[in-house]
């Protein structure tokens, strides 16, 4: 079994965005262009997250996924705004292979059981957004950490695995966008309690952080580290990059924490730590 590095693309409207801690969302460019580059670089899967879907009660990702699915032949997961079996059907029709559900699972946990029975556990990912509380416990949140649920994130993970989830996407909201590394304690607590695969998300600032997470879960979503590596090379490509996009935030001190790295470098570092992943195309010579 090989480990997985999964580029995470947060989407708002037609744009790839990245949450910057305490500063809100920044537009980075066209998600289709980033998705294609990551596929060509040997990504193991892609994760698309509609970051405002819960807020506005809609899912605008379908068109982006449909366009991506024509050129990208690795698994695509869609998260954000999936509320019903019909929404799952729509996402699959657009070309998604898996859907990740958070808010709707909290509102009606039986949705996970029904979706798993109808579309197969392998299609149903439960997205868990956790924030560490001052007493050391982890609480599950929805809407990118805007709404608390009152549920213990670890117990919720167990409950969702029993309900038939095929995989858990575990995002540390208080680490997300900070570059301080994944919440390894959260990941360890959850992986020890469930028998299904877990994908780590939130906090990667360096390739070493990805290794730390993969030591625990075997699979990690990565955003800033990859996006900020790709951005300079996409700047001259009008199909990928809107020159009006303001990237001044990259010069601020907080960004010193993010060390951009291409997928190939992350995979080589994983290899040095004994974690084999799918070979990148340059390694395959295809």
């Amino acid at each position, binding site marked *: 079994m090989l480990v997985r590095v999964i580029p995470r693309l947060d989407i708002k409207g037609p744009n790839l965005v990245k949450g910057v801690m305490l500063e809100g969302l920044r537009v980075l460019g066209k998600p289709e262009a980033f998705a294609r580059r990551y596929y060509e670089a040997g990504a193991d899967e892609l994760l698309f997250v509609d970051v405002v879907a819960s807020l506005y009660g809609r899912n605008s990702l379908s068109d982006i996924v449909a366009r991506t699915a024509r050129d990208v032949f690795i698994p*695509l997961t869609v998260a954000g705004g999936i509320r019903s079996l019909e929404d799952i059907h729509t996402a699959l029709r657009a070309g998604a292979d898996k859907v990740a559900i958070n808010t709707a699972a909290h509102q009606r946990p039986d949705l996970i059981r029904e979706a798993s029975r109808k579309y197969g556990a392998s*299609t149903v990912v439960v997205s868990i957004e956790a924030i560490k509380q001052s007493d050391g416990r982890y609480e599950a949140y929805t809407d990118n950490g805007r709404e608390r649920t009152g549920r213990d994130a670890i117990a919720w993970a167990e409950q969702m695995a029993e309900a038939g989830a095929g995989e858990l996407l575990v995002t540390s909201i208080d680490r997300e966008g900070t570059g301080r590394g994944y919440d390894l304690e959260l990941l360890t607590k959850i992986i020890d309690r469930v028998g299904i695969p877990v994908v780590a998300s939130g906090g990667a600032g360096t390739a070493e952080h990805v290794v730390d997470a993969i030591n625990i879960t075997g699979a990690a979503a990565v955003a800033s580290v990859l996006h900020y590596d790709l951005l300079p090379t996409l700047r001259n490509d009008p199909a990928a990059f809107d020159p009006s996009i303001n990237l001044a935030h990259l010069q601020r001190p907080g960004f010193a924490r993010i060390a951009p790295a291409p997928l190939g470098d992350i995979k080589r570092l994983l290899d040095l730590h004994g974690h084999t992943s799918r070979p990148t195309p340059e390694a395959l010579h295809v």
Partner: protein
Amino acid sequence: MSEPLAIVDYGIGNLFSVANACARVGCDTRITSDPAELLRAPGVILPGVGAMPDAMQVLRDTGLADALREVAARGTPLLGICLGLQLLMREGTEFEPHAGLGLIDGDVVRLAGVDPLGRPLRVPHLGWNGVHAATAWEPTDLATVPDGSAMYFVHSFHVRPADSSVVLAETRYGDQTFCSAIASGSIVACQFHPERSGALGLGILRQFAIRAGVGAVIQESAA
């Protein structure tokens, strides 16, 4: 203009990624739940994810089960993917024992075993894993795939063919070695997803299209 390849639609599974991947290798497909279209097609792809008993129920109720048996009896190229491999078997065991299409003798059982540290294997088996030749891949649909290549898997059950000579490929997960592809007559089927396994997976679909007589030779960019 030849008939397109048929992708069997029985109401579940992501058929669109299969159709997109076929389009990339230059062949037309039609997503269909009409048994007559299966019988007209030069080749039939049976994809699928989900629960085997529910899928068998739909295939029986719609007449697609009989059409698929007829496709196999005529020697029309048939490609099963994931659940589409499991459905070909004589018997499934999900929830309770039940009949499959019976085109391949053997059963379908839940993955169970331990990892190198003795912990129970995580199920579903989800991600990229090596596919190793059990018999020669030349001249099957896997002919262009290097032995040991990583392909994308996502499944909780695996097939156990009664006749080991149909086993085309094997894959190791923890302490388990399971059959990850079969070939028998005009049938090739894989537990992994060629449509989600990058350029090497697309190569399998291209070979299948060529076998069905509808393949176009198009170079795929690396990935």
